[in-house]
C-alpha cells in the first residue's frame, strides 16, 4: 500500500509532475507530504488539498491507500 499524490492545473506545471507515489511508514499530515515531495518549493498560500476527493485542511492525516490531491483555487463556472 502507498499514498498516491496528484497535482492539478497551474500547480502541476509548477511542480513539473502530475502524480507522485509515496511509500510511508510514519503517520504523515498533508503538510508533511508536501514538504517531503517538494522540499525546494514553498507551499503556495492558496494551496487547496483533498483526500479521496473531499476537501481537507493541511493538517489532516493521510492514510495508506489514500489519494491526496493538491491544487490551486478553483475557477469553474
Amino acid at each position, binding site marked *: 500500500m502507498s499514498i498516491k499524490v496528484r497535482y*492539478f*492545473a497551474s500547480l502541476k506545471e509548477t511542480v513539473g509532475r502530475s502524480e507522485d507515489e509515496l511509500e510511508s511508514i510514519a503517520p504523515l499530515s498533508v503538510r508533511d507530504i508536501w514538504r517531503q515531495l517538494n522540499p525546494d518549493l514553498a507551499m503556495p498560500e492558496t494551496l487547496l488539498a483533498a483526500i479521496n476527493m473531499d476537501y481537507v485542511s493541511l493538517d489532516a492525516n493521510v492514510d495508506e491507500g489514500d489519494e491526496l490531491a493538491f491544487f490551486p*483555487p478553483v475557477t469553474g463556472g
Partner: protein
Amino acid sequence: MPIKLCEQAFNPWKEIEAYQTQTAELAGKHGATAVFVGTMRDFNQGDGVRSMFLEHYPGMTEKQLQHIVEQAERQWSLLDTLVLHRIGAVNPDDTLVLVAAWAVHRGDAFDACRFIMEALKSRAPFWKKETLVSGQARWVENNSKGYQSK
C-alpha cells in the same frame, strides 16, 4: 437531479427544454424555474481571448457537485435540478455551465439556483486556462481562496 460533464458544446435552452419535457413529474407541478447560464466571453481582464481549456479533477468534480446539489435539496423545497458543466477545449460564446432548479414557489427556485452556482464556483474542481488573441496562454486566477478548509 442529473449532473453532467460535457466534452462537446451544448445548447443550454435545448437541454432544459428536453429535460423538462422528458420529466413527466414536473408537468403541472412546478410553478417556478430559475436558471443560470455561464457563457465564455471573448474578453477577460483587459485581453482578447481566443480559446480556453477547462481542466477538472475527474471523480472529485462529480462528487463535489453531488454534495452541492444534495445540500440545496436539504435546504430548499425543490422538485428537481439540472447541472451541466463543460470540460476540455472551449471557444468564445460556448456555454460553460448551466444550473436549473424547479420548485413550486419562486423563492426556493431562485435561492437554490444561486446557491448551487456560488458553491460550484468555490468548490467544484475546475480550472480555466485561457489562450489570448496574442497567443499567450495563462491560468485564470481566483483571488478569493474559495473553499475554506477548516
